């Protein structure tokens, strides 16, 4: 049986594990069921994703935590970074150090060293050799998956968009939690093709009048229903998901023929546009690009409670949206249903202004 690796964050270069014949799945809980359990060890006033993830691990019911040969964490945000110190005592764990920014003299050398150290760690721990050829092959497979995701998301460039956000989001999440890259790639391509064909045949599942909204911010898996779906229920059309499981990581492309394949992997992953970076230039650049490409009329910035990177970054995102002449709304939420009605009202009013 192939070895299984659970990862938390998109900065983890999955190709390294896959080149070693291992499979990777995403962790990062989207359910509130084990939050109370996690609060026996973590502060209550903390990001729900961080709490829910430790809770799932503590509960011992999640098959990935039970079966994974390795869990990989990253020093992305404070909450996860420190939570891993508790989680790391319960499961086989490895921590990757992500630099605090991309544009400093130290950034890339440090990051490349981390990627090289990860490779050595995998080889030593699992008694395998990771060849350049295997890395190139893993890059090709991941590129194909990322391109399939991009193709699927691109159907929303159409006016009106070719799909309800639900269809796309569900497919993306399914791919995220599946260890089978080829199957996921195939499934996403098939869905994209169906949507393209139907659209060309005249099918218009989204109203022409629906205002176009780009969603950005924190991982939205646990708050999807009361945010993204609320946009569409209130007559809007979500045309782009600028989030970890959406376009943010799917837009990574790595040259499989690069002379130094490890360097190519490292330099691609470091460009992921997360707000943890100081300054978050990649995030801002990508947001500008996607607002244009998807012709969004409004930006909905979704933050998870006390995710300081994203909540403080709203100051800059609001300005960016204003500069581009698009409307902006930020909502701060968690995994509990208590603010559902309030969010629906606010998001409804936002769609109305568009």
């Amino acid at each position, binding site marked *: 049986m192939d070895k299984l690796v659970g990862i938390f964050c998109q900065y983890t270069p999955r190709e390294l594990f896959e080149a070693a014949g291992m499979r990777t799945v995403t962790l990062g809980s989207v359910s509130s069921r084990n939050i109370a359990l996690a609060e026996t060890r973590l*502060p209550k006033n*903390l990001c729900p994703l961080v709490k829910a993830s430790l809770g799932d691990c503590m509960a011992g019911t999640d098959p990935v935590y039970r079966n994974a040969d390795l869990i990989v964490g990253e020093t992305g945000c404070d909450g996860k*970074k*420190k939570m*891993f110190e508790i989680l790391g005592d319960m499961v086989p764990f490895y921590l990757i150090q992500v630099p605090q920014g991309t544009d400093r*003299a130290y950034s890339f050398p*440090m990051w490349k060293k981390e990627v090289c150290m990860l490779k050595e760690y995998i080889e030593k721990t699992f008694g395998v050799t990771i060849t350049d050829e295997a890395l190139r092959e893993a890059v090709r497979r991941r590129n194909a998956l990322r391109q399939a995701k991009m193709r699927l998301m691109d159907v929303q460039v159409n006016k009106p968009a070719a799909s309800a956000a639900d269809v796309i989001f569900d497919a993306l999440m399914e791919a995220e939690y599946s260890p089978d890259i080829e199957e996921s790639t195939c499934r996403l391509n098939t869905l994209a093709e169906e949507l393209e064909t139907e659209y060309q045949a005249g099918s218009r599942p989204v109203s022409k009048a629906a205002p176009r909204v780009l969603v950005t911010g924190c991982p939205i898996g646990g708050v999807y229903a009361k945010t993204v779906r609320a946009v569409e229920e209130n007559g809007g059309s979500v045309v782009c998901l600028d989030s970890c499981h959406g376009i943010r990581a799917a837009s990574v492309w790595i040259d499989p023929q690069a002379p130094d394949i490890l360097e190519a992997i490292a330099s691609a992953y470091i460009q992921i546009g997360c707000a943890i970076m100081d300054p978050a230039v990649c995030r801002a650049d990508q947001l500008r690009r996607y607002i244009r490409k998807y012709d969004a009329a409004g930006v909905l910035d979704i933050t998870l409670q*006390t995710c300081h990177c994203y909540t403080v970054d709203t100051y800059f995102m609001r300005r960016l949206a204003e500069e581009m002449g698009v409307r902006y709304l930020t909502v701060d939420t968690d995994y509990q249903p208590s603010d559902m009605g309030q969010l629906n009202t606010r998001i409804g009013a936002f769609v109305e202004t568009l």
Partner: protein
Amino acid sequence: MATLPEHFAEFKESRQRNFLRVKALKDRGENVVGTFCQYSPKEIIDAAGAYSVGLCGKSQEPIPLAETKLPANLCPLIKASYGNALGDTCPYAFFSDVISGETTCDGKKKMYRMLNEIKPTYTIHLPNHPDRERSVEALADEFREFAKRLEEAFGVTITDEKIREAIKIRNQERIQAAAVYELGRLDPPAITGYNMRHIMDSDDYYFDVKEKYEITDEVIRQCMEAYNQGEGPYKPDEHPVRVIISGAGLGGTEDKTVKFLEEAGGAVVCYEGCSGIVSRRRLVEESETKDPYLCLAEKYLEVPCAVMSPNSPRFDQIRRTIDEWRADGLICINLHSCHPFGIEAYNISRVCEEKGIPFMHIETDFSDSDVEQLRTRMEAFVELLKESRAAKAAKEAANG
């Protein structure tokens, strides 16, 4: 002549005085660098011939203004620091030519970007991992970059020689700060924890390193003299329960934490954390040949801060401090929504459990809302420590 803020006349007298003192520095043509934390390499600022002043917000007052731009659910120190700069209410921020920030936490890291729009701010990127092999080069690079920025800002040249000289002076300051904590090692302690805190915060009052050193020396001498004459803060036969305070951002909360604990009959004997004992004991290597930036990076990488992960070196330091200061209990204090210290409190509680001493975790802010609650908790903790000490004594007696 440097000019004062618009609302100067409305400030309290003490603040007006501080404004005038920094203004005097500026009028003399001195350069001023605003700093926030122990990671700020003062040696480099010294070598640039500039004065460092502390900018950490420690009061509730500037917070409402800050919340017009920052999320409300954020650490009060971050909000207060930004609010002070935004509203021109802090003399040190107002007169700083350059601000040095560090990526100690997400909140600060992101806030410094906003601060940069008010004052030129250079954020030193800290590694996240305490392992020297993985991180020390990156930190040394950042220190070099910081030096370059100061050179550009002030039109000066920072030579290795100047840094080496500053290292020696700042090491003396560290040795002296450690000596203050040594006063707490005595039983009964020769100083209260509240006064210890006050000395540690004296960076806020003395800009001149030499002046501060002389005054602190005098304070230590007086403490020892009083102690030797049986006139210390505790009677010679008094043995208050001994507490270590651990955590960060203690400035601005000591009146409702340390003070209450000591009023309830406990004694804060030492501090652990970035400005605590282990941090002071760890000197920068004084070498005439080694790259001084590397010497600095090696030292600063060992500052006991929760930004680092995994933080096992900090836990070892806490174990040693508990033993050396013969602590009966430990209190972790952190500010509201400070994730690094808030989460790390759990692993510190495990260290205390292992050492067999009671542990308490307090999360607070700069407001008055929890004052009475904290008083009660401090009183209860002191009672608990007395009982636990008595139980230990009884057990030892029974074991012969």
